């Protein structure tokens, strides 16, 4: 606001009274805290499974959207979650949330994939090691936990950020709106890219014989994923 002489006159205007948020459609279930996840499944596996790291690679097809809650933790990379991570998540969220007004829900299954480990200090050979622990595979773009209730993102974000930092893959706390915003920005970026040469175009038409140096999976991954990592800045 300019006063006489063009000098800006700072002033406090009328206070804009915002209505409190409407939580009418949200019911808090009976057991609002996170369920306890077993270290070992009820029927432990006898047969040792091959590594199959392809369950870490690429974008996730399951649990990418919100179901019950309003806020959650989004994985931005692939990784394995074992019982220690589950306990950390369960206890931290259980400690920081208010069970009367908030509830939390798992979006990943209990560990079921057996991972072997050879005893330390021995040479190669002698067969596959025994089962060390069980893990769950998480791909990028998957929600790990969901939190909801009569609360706002600002209340939930601090402890979700602390949990997300401790996970073995990069993760961020998100809300429904922020996830939508993220997707919209990604789409906008893809549309208003000024570079006529995109990874997808080069790979699908095999320009300059690039497919010799790329994997057949790059047709689907389109240069946004490298191993278990998700490259956020790409396209």
């Amino acid at each position, binding site marked *: 606001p300019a006063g006489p002489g063009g000098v800006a006159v700072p*002033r406090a205007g*009328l206070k804009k009274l915002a209505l409190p948020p409407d939580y009418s459609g949200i019911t808090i279930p009976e057991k609002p805290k996170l369920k306890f996840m077993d270290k070992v499944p009820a029927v432990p596996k006898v047969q040792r499974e091959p590594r199959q790291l392809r369950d870490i690679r690429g974008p996730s097809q399951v649990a990418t959207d919100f179901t019950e809650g309003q806020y959650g933790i989004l994985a931005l990379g692939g990784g394995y979650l074992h019982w220690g991570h589950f306990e950390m998540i369960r206890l931290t969220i259980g400690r920081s949330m208010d069970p009367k007004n908030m509830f939390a829900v798992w979006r990943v299954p209990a560990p079921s994939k057996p991972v072997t480990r050879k005893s330390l200090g021995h040479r190669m050979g002698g067969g596959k090691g025994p089962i060390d622990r069980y893990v769950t595979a998480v791909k990028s773009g998957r929600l790990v936990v969901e939190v909801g209730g009569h609360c706002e993102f600002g209340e939930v974000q601090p402890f979700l950020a602390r949990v997300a930092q401790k996970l073995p893959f990069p993760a961020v706390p998100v809300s429904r709106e922020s996830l939508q915003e993220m997707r919209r920005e990604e789409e906008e*970026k893809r549309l208003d890219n000024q570079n006529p040469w995109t990874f997808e175009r080069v790979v699908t038409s095999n320009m300059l014989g690039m497919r010799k140096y*790329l994997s057949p999976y790059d047709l689907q991954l389109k240069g946004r994923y490298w191993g*278990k990592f998700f490259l956020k800045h790409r*396209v």
Partner: protein
Amino acid sequence: AVAAKMAALGGGGTRWRQAWLPTLQLLRRGSKAVTRHWKAMHLQRQKLMAVTEYLRPRPALPPRCLPRPSPQGQQEDGQARVLRRQVEETLRASRMVAVCQYNSMPDEDLATFRHYLRKHDIHVKFVLNEIVRPVLEQSKFRNLLPLFVCRNILLVSPEPRAREMLRVLRGVPQVNLLGACIDETILSRRGVENFAQLPSLEVSQGQTVAALSLLSSQTSSLLQRGPAHLTALLDEHIRRLRDTGGATEPPPG
């Protein structure tokens, strides 16, 4: 040669296939596709990633050089509407509207100030510029707009009591009179002081009536001036005759 090639390829079938898998894949390179560490990319792949990076759209004119878009779609605040209506009513109902600059005062001093003004039937109203400005633009007080810049108050009253208002304001240094609109006449500070020194309406009305009737009151005395002069002369003459000789009879008449 063909048979050897077939055997080396491990094609399985006997049919000659156009597409073939390289025997020595890149398994030489050591690690698998998915690793815990950041796997080093082939140089060609690095070049491809560098070429296919995202390029931000750069408009010819940066957006900060363009004029700022005016804030659009402001929701009409109910409270603002109520306050605007109140301001309109006060402006309509009062004959005297004085705009003063307000600097922060202690609360008790403010209460005393309001009390003194209330005794002379002058009301103190705190107004927000962002509400008053649109109201003034639409009403007839358009010329008061330059006064509503800083923090200000309105002293409104249904009667033009300028003298008492100035007396109270003189005692309060934190409130400065900027201008006033009395009986639909905009006055500056000097104008208000002059207005205060004017006599009140009844006195001035009496003075006007007296001035107008002055000439008519003089008419009767003007008309009687001739005969009055004659009467005075004759009386003087009689007196002189009486003084000179009492024997001489006065002339008839």
